[in-house]
Structures are given as structure tokens and as C-alpha cells.
């Protein structure tokens, strides 16, 4: 554990500085990239330093692999050319350029409105994808009233003239993101190809014309780039199953996509920061966001702290000299951790179910329903006006009670984890510390305060932070227990929110609200959900940057 975890410098300043440093680096990176793309200085410089080498680079920039071939490195030329060829083949086979060439353009010229989207109509995966990403679709069934597109009626599906079918913005956006990613990847390979032709020539020149043998080359690549080779499969997987979907969702935040937009009748459009403006300038949305955000932070904080404290208490008690059969107690108290979380949460939904749930049955059997009700009312958790059983989870007037239950259930679920963790940490405290304390005549209390507690806190501090971020996004704890309910009564929801059907429940945290926005209910506000996701991402990554900036071991090179 690093010492830095506990130094007293202002936390806020540290975060700000870390963020500042991050953006500074980002800015420099972007500027460098822009210079590389648009400023031909380095090309000029390359020609100045070594004309022949630069010529090889130029050859490779015309046809990938040509420069390498000229360098007599056919084993490099083949892969570079193959990648280039694959991209071209994909583009040609998925496109329908042959129809454009065979006179379809003349047969169906641009319509009266002058609209003709060449890449939409004839492009392949890549060009059409990028067209789609930029425009998000142009042609809809509504165009039929004004004469259709290129003089033909727009259809739902058309197998003869593909361009006659309507645009589906979702698909266009999705395929566009994939096409964009592939393009970026190819451009990287293309630049590497040019650089390689240039640099290889310089190397060959330095070696007085001796070209590396293919076998030597393969062995060198295998040895030097072994790290890259073994991480590439994982990264391809991450690229397609994590990164591209995230990119898609990120982009959705800048569109007007809600489920009100019917595919084929209207298209989704880029709306820039409009959704962000709705979220941050509309006071009614801001109000809901504030409530949900405060509850999320409160929940995440309470859930982490209560669980930690109880885990600590249990570990200390079981490990103390007053308790025998330590292993037995530990195994019993670990059970909540061993039961799958999904199952325990759904079980607790039953436990707190008002009709026939375990809690109300116990209270009724003990004849304590009224006493408990009175007690809860006095401490301000209960507000229900109905007589009879306590409605734990489903009464808007009992929202505070429901919130308390969420934290208590989380405590039940979570304390064993910390009990185990802290028990493990307690075992690592050197006995010599206690012996030294004994010699100095320290009391048991002092030993706890000055040896045990600091040691445990130091060892577990990073985990408290990760637990906090985990709870911040702990979708299951809310969704499976309360489903975000109880909901707000209709008259408490302002119109601008009600129109979009975007109101959260009273116990929704940000993440479960996002889920509701994009998957539940009549209107699905994908754009709103995306904006809130970006917000969560920013908040969480700030915490992470802060944590990491303290953890030296993360950055240590070895």
C-alpha cells in the first residue's frame, strides 16, 4: 500500500490537477495528429533526408505493398497488399457499382428536388456506412407524396432496385459506426505501411543493401512483438463487443432518437447538443436529475460504508479471543455472499412483499404490526395512509422506508465480503507490532486504535473506493429489489417530463433510470439515456483518475 493514500493534500485540487493534466495531454495528442494529417512538412522532410527512401514510401502510398516489393521485401508486401485487397473486395462486392455503370444513373436521374445520394444508392459497406453515419438517412416513405426519390416510389423493401427502399436510421447508424471503425483501423495500417517502406529502405541502406531473410524476419517479429500478438485476439473481441457498441451509444446522445421516430416514416437526425440542453437547461429535468443523483450518491455512500463497518465488526468479533469455533461462525455468516445476488435480491422482494411476505408474517405472528408502524412513523420513514399491513416497497408515501430497506438488504448481501476481506487482512498484521505494544504497556483499546485499525484501513482503502463506484452503478440492487418503484404519483410529474414518459421511480438510481429510459415503458428515450450514461461515465472516470493518481504501483514499469 502506498503512503500517498493518506497524505492530506486537498482532494479537490488533486482531482482538478489530474483532470487538467489529462486534457492537456489529450490536446497535445490531437494537435499532433492534426499536424500529421494536414501539414506536409514531414513529407517534405522525408524527401530532404533520403530521397530514395521517401520514394519507396510514395510507392506504398499509391499501392500498399509496392514500396516493400521495391525494397525486395515480398514477405511484407504480401500482407499489406492483402489487407488493402480485402478492403477493396469488401467494398466492391457489397456495393452495387455495376448498376451505376450499366446506365441506371441515366435511367433514373436525380428527382425533381435534385436529390441523388450516390453512395447511398451504390456504395459498399464502407462508403455507404460512412454516408449513413453522416446523414443518418434521407429517404423515407413520406417522400412519396412529393414524387418519391429519383422519380420512383419509395418502398419498404425492394429487391430489384435496392436504392428504392426506405432508410432505416438505426441500421445506418450501427453499420456506420462499424464502417467508421474499420476505416480508422485501415488508415492506421495504411500509414504504418508507408512508414515501413520508408524506414526499411533506410535500414537496408545502412546494412549496405543486405535484405533481411524471411525466416529471420518472422522470428524477429515473433520475439519483438510477442506482447502485441498475444493481446490482439482479446482486443478484436473487445473492439466488436464492447467498444463499437459504446461508441454507438455515445453517438446516440447527439441525435434525436426516441422510439417516437418510426422507422421508415422519419429519420433520426444529428441534433448536436440539443439533448444535453434539454437535460441541463430544462429545470424540470434538472430537478429529477438532482433528486436521482443525490439519492444515487447517498445510496452508494451508505451502502459502502455500512457494509464496511459491519464487516469490520464481524471480523473483529470472530477473530477476538472471546469467541470459539471461529470457523463455524465464519462459514455461517459467509452464506449471504455465497448465495447468488440475483436470487437473494428477488428473495428479499418476496420477504418485503406486503401480502404474505415474510416480514409482515413475522410481525403479524408476534402481534407487533402496529408497534412497528408507530415506531417507523415516529422516525419519519412511514407515511402510508392505509390501514393494516405495512407496505414496504410499493407505496409512494413510504418512499423513505423503501430506501432504508434497499440499504439494509444491501447490508445483508454485502457484509460477508468485507468480513472475509478484513479477516484476511487481520492475519497479515505482524505479531511483532502487538508484542512491542505489550512491552510498552498498551491497553487492548490502544492496540486496536493504533495498530489494528490503521493497518486494516490502509490495506482496504482502495477497495472502499471501488465499492463506492460499484454501488454507484449497482443496477441489480435496485432493479431486482424494487424495480425503481414506488413511482411518482402522476400529478407530481411535470408535463415536459411526462410527455416523454421519462420520469424515474422514487428509488431509481441513475443506472436503473437509464435502463428504464431505454428499455421500459411506452416511449423509449434513447438519446436521454445516452446523455445520462455519458454523465455517469464522466463522474466515475473522475473518481478513477483520482484513485489511480494516488496508486503509484499502477504506473510502475517492470
Amino acid at each position, binding site marked *: 500500500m502506498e503512503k500517498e493514500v493518506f497524505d492530506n493534500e486537498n482532494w479537490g485540487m488533486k482531482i482538478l490537477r489530474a483532470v487538467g493534466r489529462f486534457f492537456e495531454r489529450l490536446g497535445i495528442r490531437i494537435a499532433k495528429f492534426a499536424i500529421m494529417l494536414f501539414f506536409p512538412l514531414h513529407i517534405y522532410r522525408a524527401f530532404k533526408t533520403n530521397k530514395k527512401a521517401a520514394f519507396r514510401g510514395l510507392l506504398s502510398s499509391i499501392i500498399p505493398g509496392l514500396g516493400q516489393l521495391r525494397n525486395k521485401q515480398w514477405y511484407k508486401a504480401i500482407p499489406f497488399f492483402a489487407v488493402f485487397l480485402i478492403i477493396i473486395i469488401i467494398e466492391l462486392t457489397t456495393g452495387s457499382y455495376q448498376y451505376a455503370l450499366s446506365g441506371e444513373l441515366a435511367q433514373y436521374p436525380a428527382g425533381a428536388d435534385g436529390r441523388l445520394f450516390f453512395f447511398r444508392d451504390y456504395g459498399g459497406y464502407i462508403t455507404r456506412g460512412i454516408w449513413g453515419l453522416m446523414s443518418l438517412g434521407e429517404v423515407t416513405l413520406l417522400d412519396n407524396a412529393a414524387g418519391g426519390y429519383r422519380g420512383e416510389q419509395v418502398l419498404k423493401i425492394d429487391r430489384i432496385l435496392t436504392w428504392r427502399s426506405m432508410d432505416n436510421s438505426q441500421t445506418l447508424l450501427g453499420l456506420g459506426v462499424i464502417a467508421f471503425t474499420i476505416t480508422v483501423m485501415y488508415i492506421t495500417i495504411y500509414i504504418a505501411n508507408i512508414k515501413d517502406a520508408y524506414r526499411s529502405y533506410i535500414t537496408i541502406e545502412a546494412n549496405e543493401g543486405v535484405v533481411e531473410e524471411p525466416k529471420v524476419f518472422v522470428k524477429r517479429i515473433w520475439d519483438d512483438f510477442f506482447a502485441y500478438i498475444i*493481446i490482439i485476439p482479446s482486443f478484436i*473481441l473487445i473492439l466488436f*463487443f464492447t467498444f463499437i457498441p459504446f461508441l454507438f451509444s455515445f453517438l446516440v446522445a447527439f441525435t434525436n432518437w426516441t422510439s417516437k421516430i418510426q422507422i421508415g416514416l422519419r429519420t433520426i437526425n444529428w441534433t448536436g447538443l440539443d439533448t444535453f440542453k434539454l437535460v441541463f437547461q430544462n429545470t424540470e429535468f434538472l430537478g429529477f436529475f438532482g433528486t436521482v443523483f443525490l439519492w444515487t450518491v447517498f445510496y452508494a455512500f451508505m451502502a459502502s460504508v455500512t457494509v464496511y463497518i459491519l464487516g469490520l465488526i464481524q471480523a473483529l468479533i470472530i477473530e477476538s479471543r472471546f469467541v470459539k469455533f471461529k470457523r463455524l461462525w465464519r462459514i455461517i455468516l459467509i*452464506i449471504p455472499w455465497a448465495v447468488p445476488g440475483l436470487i437473494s435480491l428477488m428473495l428479499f422482494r418476496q420477504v418485503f412483499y406486503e401480502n404474505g411476505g415474510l416480514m409482515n408474517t*413475522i410481525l403479524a405472528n408476534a402481534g407487533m404490526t402496529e408497534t412497528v408502524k408507530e415506531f417507523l412513523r415516529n422516525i419519519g420513514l412511514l407515511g402510508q395512509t392505509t390501514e393494516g399491513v405495512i407496505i414496504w416497497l410499493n407505496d409512494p408515501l413510504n418512499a423513505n422506508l423503501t430506501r432504508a430497506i434497499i440499504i439494509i438488504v444491501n447490508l445483508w448481501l454485502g457484509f460477508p465480503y468485507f468480513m472475509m476481506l478484513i479477516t484476511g487482512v487481520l492475519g497479515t498484521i505482524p505479531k511483532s507490532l502487538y508484542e512491542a505494544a505489550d512491552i510498552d504497556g498498551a491497553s487492548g483499546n490502544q492496540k486496536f486504535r493504533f495498530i489494528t485499525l490503521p493497518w486494516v484501513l490502509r490495506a482496504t482503502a482502495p477497495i472502499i473506493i471501488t465499492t463506492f463506484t460499484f454501488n454507484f452503478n449497482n443496477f441489480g440492487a435496485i432493479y431486482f429489489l424494487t424495480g425503481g418503484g414506488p413511482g411518482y404519483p402522476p400529478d407530481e410529474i411535470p408535463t415536459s417530463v411526462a410527455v416523454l414518459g421519462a420520469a424515474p421511480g422514487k428509488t431509481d438510481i441513475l443506472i436503473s433510470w437509464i435502463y428504464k429510459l431505454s428499455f421500459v415503458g411506452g416511449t423509449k428515450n434513447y438519446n436521454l439515456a445516452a446523455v445520462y450514461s455519458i454523465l455517469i461515465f464522466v463522474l466515475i472516470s473522475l473518481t478513477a483518475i483520482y484513485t489511480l493518481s494516488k496508486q503509484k504501483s499502477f504506473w510502475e514499469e517492470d
Partner: protein
Amino acid sequence: MDNKRLYKTKDGAKMLGVCKGFSEYSGLPAFMFRGAFIILGIFTFVLGIILGQNVSQLIMYLIMFSGLFVYVIIGLLLPPKFYKYKRLKDFDDLGEYLAYRLRRFSFKTLIFSLLSYAWLLMWVVIVLTPLLWMVSAAFTDTTLLSAVPIYPDFSQWSLANYFGQDETNLGLFVYKSSSDAVLPEYLDAFFVTLKIAVLNTILIVIFSSLVGFAFSRYRFKGKKKVLLTLMALQMFPSFMGMLALVMFFRQFGLTNNWVALTMIYVAGSIPYNTFIVRGFMRNIPKSLDEAASIDGATNLQIMWRVIIPLAVPIMGFIAVTAFMGPWLDYILPSVIMPQEQTVAVWLFRYMDPLGATYSPVKFMAGALFLAVPIMMVQVYMQRFVVYGLTAGAEKG
């Protein structure tokens, strides 16, 4: 003096150390005695249930747990291997011994012990009550939650929720219709999930060990950037990408494809596992690699022959978590595999108060069937997991 005496021991004990003590006395392996006690426990438990129809509740419980009682009584009666206090025979007379014990006795200790036990007992009750209620519901023949006894009532023991055949309450393991189903729906869902879990485990172990190895052993250009990207990916709310995934899966006809679903799990867990494996492998001394390298081992050989065998504990942790994951995931399979349901999706149907299949008791029966094996694996792997947790925690 014959030093071969029967005792209980703390080293290698699982509970009270009785079986280990027997094993040290007899020379037979401890698992045989453990197995014998477990069989005895199960036997008396079943016996109690069978006899329970004819005798009173109290006697039934006594019979049911008599195996456990026998174990605990032996555990209490057996002398320990090493004595904490001096014993009577070490003293000249009884008075001296009593004085010795009295000096050792402290009122404070007694009070603290009692308080500690009271506190722990309270938590045992809090922890076990909801779970026993679940067991109770699983074995009660009813559709009403309110008819479920709080603690299992074995005189009303019933397997109707699992094998019941009557019209209103079809059991989980019973065919809905005899048409074309190969397995009852619940078992079908169970095996779908099993397939996913096995593939998930294999792939995650392979990918994480490769990536973790690369990040712990090599310096390469862009390493920090990649690590930061992985960190950021971990931060992004996971089902934010779900919208896109659902769309892509429809686009490419992958809906209801279990391999594709597994790929999402694998891709999603690589970032987190990378940090754990990297943290562990960094503690394996580099001198091992260098020695192997001098002996002419290639990169691949160093990885497979030297490092990965040493990283087996952390791989075990990752394998267990990877195997557990799919059983408990609801949201992703519910949108991506609406037809071929996994267990969690299938169970959740019983939990939807608005759905036609709402039946909380049935849910608890199914959940119990699912939870028991998982719980046993988890408790068994407990140390391993704690080890993984602390290893990951200390090295970030």
C-alpha cells in the same frame, strides 16, 4: 508413556477437528471420517423426515439433527491435542488447581464472551431466516406466499413444486406438453446456461492469461494507453452498449445465439481480469523468466511452462467467477436470447407480478435448486476468492 491418544486437533481442521483427530489416530485419510459423518447426518435427517409423520415436532427435529448432535458431542468431549491450561494432574492437590483456574478466570472475559456470542447468534438468525423461508417455500405445496411457514415444517414436506403433476401447480421438472420438447423447460434453461458457462470459463481463462501475461511481462509502445483504455471501458455503464448490441445482433442474425452471447461476456470481463492477472503475475520474480530464457526457452515456452503454472491460483479465481457469471445475469440474456432462455431469465418470469406465470413459491423452488450448487462451490472456493481479492487489491 503411550503418545498415541485420541484427540481433536486444530491443524487442518474443517470444523471442530474431530475427523482430523480420528485420522491422525488411525492413520486413515480424514475425508473418510468426514464422509462418514456427512452420510450419518444425511441419514438421520431423512430418517427424521420419514418418521416425522408419526411423532411430535420436537422428537422429529431431534432425530433429524441427531447426526449433527453426535458430532458436536464428540467434539466437546474429545480432549484437545494441546492443552491451553495446566491440567489437574499437573498439580499436587485440587485446591491449588482451583486457585490456578480462578486466577485465570476473568469476569470481564465472561461478559465479553457472552455479548459476542449473543451478537453472533443474532446475526446467524438474521442471515438464515430469509434463506430458511426460501427452503420452506420450495418444499411447501401451495401457490400462496402467505401459506408458507416461516421455518421449514417437515411434517408438511412436499415435492410438488418440483415434481407435482396436478393441473394448477405443475412442477418445475415436469414436461409442459409432451409434444417436441427434449427436456422440461427448466432443465432446458439449465443446460443452455451450462453451455454458456463452460465456454465462458474456457475463453476467459485463455484470454485473460494471455493479456495479463503481456501486461505484466513486457514493455511495449502504447502500454499505458491500452491500460487506461481498459480502465475506461470498465467504467462505462455496461448495458449502455446493450442497445447497440441488440441492434447489431438483429442485423446479423445472431439473436438467440448462445455463442455470440458468450462473446459479450468474454469481451466484457477481459478488462477487469487483466488487472487481476497482471497484479498477480507481477509478483512472480522476473529472474525465473531470465533463467528460462538463458536456457533457450522461447517466449511461448516461458509463458506456458513457467509463468502460467505458477499463476494457477489466480486462474482458479478467474475460472470460478467466469463460471458463476452467466447463471446470474438477467438483463443481457433477456434481450439477446428471448427464445432460448437462460435460467435467470426463466426464473424471472415467475417474479413478474403482471405476468401470466407469476408464482413466487415456484420461483423459490427454482432458485433453491440453482442456489445450492453455486453456494457449495462458493463456500468451498472461499479462501481462493479471498486470496484473489486481496491479490487484486494490493497491487491495483
